[in-house]
């Protein structure tokens, strides 16, 4: 188990390197560069060329990449082209907000999804099961930005219960209540698709598990139904669920980009969108690198969890 984890950890480096190459290429090969966007339609050729030289964009791509990588391995992600601030500090400063949002969404989708899935599986074809099937179809097919705006219009504009955007009230605030109020709509929006996926998967694995012989045996022994479902059923159904939750963690990190933009949530997502629109290369590369690292670590954690849930994996 330990050698397995160590080997997985050693792979983090090459994965990040690969990600950085891809992001670097995509950014630099897509048409329009930072100078073009900064200067806008007014730009003269001389202005463009001068700015490109100042930004180091006239050198061959491999040289630019090598220079950037040289700094990165020393822990320096460079300076944002337009914000005039070091990228690392900027990304880490925003990362907390993204973690709060995706963490809450992950918690909502896991707890909510498993609860719904178990409830549907124990009462197949009941009203709850059918409603949950319809809700799943709805949840999985709604785009995040649309759902976000609909929730915003209902809960912020019509009912006035929750604030529409931001992380804290503009006038200060800043306590936990203030944060929770602002967190509600973006977290639910972000979790919506995941909760349905987790619920459907939980339902099908639970149905399968509950049909096993050992469940019948447990029931025959006279074990209380609640224990049959939770201890004998759910525990054994958890492996595929954990896998899908791990995948959802990555999906949520990606989905946060849209959700954050809709709700003006001050996370890495809004920062990345700002960076992409301005072709702020160092900023986007920094954001992607940090998000990719986070994604890799989540995957690692999921693998470690398998072992914890299923001793057979530990022994292999």
């Amino acid at each position, binding site marked *: 188990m330990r050698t397995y984890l160590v080997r997985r950890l050693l792979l983090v480096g090459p994965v990040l390197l690969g990600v950085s190459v891809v992001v670097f290429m995509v950014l630099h090969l*897509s*048409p*329009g*560069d930072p100078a*073009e*966007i*900064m*200067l*806008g*339609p*007014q730009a*003269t*050729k*001389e*202005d463009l060329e001068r*700015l490109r030289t*100042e*930004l180091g964009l006239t050198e061959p791509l491999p040289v630019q990449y090598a220079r950037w990588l040289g700094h990165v391995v020393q822990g320096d992600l460079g300076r944002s082209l*337009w*914000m*005039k*601030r070091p990228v690392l500090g*900027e990304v880490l400063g*925003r990362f907390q*907000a993204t973690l709060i949002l995706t963490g809450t969404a992950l918690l909502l989708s896991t707890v909510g999804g498993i609860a719904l899935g178990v409830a549907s599986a124990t009462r197949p074809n009941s009203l709850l099961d059918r409603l949950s099937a319809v809700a799943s179809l709805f949840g999985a097919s709604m785009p995040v*930005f649309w759902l976000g705006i609909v*929730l*915003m*219009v209902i*809960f*912020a*504009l019509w009912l*006035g*219960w*929750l*604030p*529409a*955007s*931001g*992380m*804290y*009230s*503009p*006038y200060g*605030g800043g*306590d936990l*209540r203030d944060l*929770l*109020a602002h967190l*509600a*709509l973006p977290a*639910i929006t972000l979790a919506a698709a995941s909760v349905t996926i987790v619920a459907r998967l939980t339902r099908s694995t639970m149905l399968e598990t509950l049909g096993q012989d050992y469940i019948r045996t447990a029931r025959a022994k006279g074990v209380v139904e609640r224990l049959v479902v939770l201890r004998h059923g759910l525990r054994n159904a958890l492996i595929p669920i954990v896998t899908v939750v791990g995948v959802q963690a990555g999906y949520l990190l990606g989905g946060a980009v849209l959700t954050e933009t*809709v*709700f003006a949530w*001050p996370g890495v997502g809004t*920062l990345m*969108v*700002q960076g992409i*629109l*301005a072709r702020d290369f160092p900023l986007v590369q920094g954001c992607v690198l940090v998000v990719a690292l986070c994604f890799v670590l989540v995957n690692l954690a999921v693998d470690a969890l398998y072992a914890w849930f299923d001793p057979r994996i530990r022994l292999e």
Partner: protein
Amino acid sequence: MWIAASFVLLARGSVGPTAAQPAGTLVVGAVAEPVNLDAAQVTDFNSTRVIRRITEALVAFPDDSTQLVPGLAESWTVGRDGLAYTFKLRKGVRFHDGTPFNAEAVKFSFERQIDPNHPFNKLGKYPFASFNFGTIKSVEAVDEHTVQFVMKEPRASFLTIMAGAAANIVSPTAVKKWGADYPNHPVGTGPFRFVSWDRGQRIVLEKNPDYWKGPVKVERVIVRPIVEDQARLTELLTGNLDLAVNLPPDFIAQLENHPKVTVLRGQGAHVWYLGINNQKKPFDDKRVRQAMNYAVNKEAIVRDVLKGTGLASAGPVLPGTWGAEPGLKPYPYDPDRARKLLAEAGHAAGFSTTLWVPESGSGMQSPVAMATVIQSNLKAVGINVALQTMEWGAFLAKLRTKEQELFALSWAAGNEDPDLVVYPLLHSSQWTPGGPYRALYKNARLDDLLQQARLVTDQGKRAELYRQAQRILVDDPPWIFIDHEIQVGAVSKRVQGFTLHPSFDLRVETISLK
């Protein structure tokens, strides 16, 4: 829903439309976060709208127009045929850090941008230094309160440029103190001083009690970046914003009758046009370009797509400003005339072409919807247009290839000096890729008029030259003229005394809060 409900229960009491608004604090919703707060290092309105509260220029615009009035300079004289500008500076003005505003500070603010050997030149990128200040030869501090700019060549629009954000005067002490980090710690002489910036959340400004015009009435300004239109609108309607601008046309009807807000409109110094590549066939024929102007129903675009947030344009210059030709009328919508002209030009059967449109972009209003109407208008007279939509950055890059046939573009000069609109957009020396003139039309008489109007300093003479130029441009149109944007904003009912400025600036210092 149960999750939403539990959040509501947890959070009830601290939120909702009744959230306390501290007296004297104004909350402004920005479309995007400013990139940084050094006026010399930004090019977007979201940044300059904040920066102009903190730093000021020698020349200013009054609160209702873009004519020129004294700012940090009390007066100025233009000498030696437009080759020297001498500014008398306002006395007793101090920067927010307590250091004096004087001739040395003015010299410093310009030299850091234009002199490559200046110790603070390398600390920043000054994107428009050559566009704005390329004609300056030197800046001399004559005495403590007098500055002289010596020019390489005359440029009649120089004073207008001196009212632009890039000409704002910064505290040399602050620039020296912060170095490359100055753009995050701006210090000027303006009505507000910079307090703090929580990234992605808010910028806080506080009133400058020693402001030379006298302190403003608002105590604090909080600027919140909210990209999503619906979110900005909702925050405004629920009392979490006092002022929001750049509202999409579709929201206006919803706002007009709302009891909590007042809708504001203001003409912007801007032009939206459909560029035509005059070098490509069949667009080299004047009759084809005239026909296209007759074919497009710009009144319908303004009314139905823009919901009244535009003024149909007759030419490139904003009507009502000193350089505009008052006799100019927009091309009427006349498809029959268009068909006739096309037939005369030998295109009775029509032809096919391509129109490049950015999905969005600074000053582009509703580009795809507008282009779609133009496409169907042109189709009606036999011109089959294929729309190609592109992302803004890709679009700008592609326009440098000169392969365009038709393209949608706009220009927000933010002031009324025609030199800063027609010269870059219509003088043949400015052809892309060297300059921003992408319609590639050439007319020696027009070039001559635009050049002369640049060299003469008398405004009356300049106006006459620009009027002649506009008559040529309308008769032999290099573009399809579409509209001049009317800005739309909305304020909460407690905001008094605010108007939208034609320069697209947000003058919150004029506001008092009920």
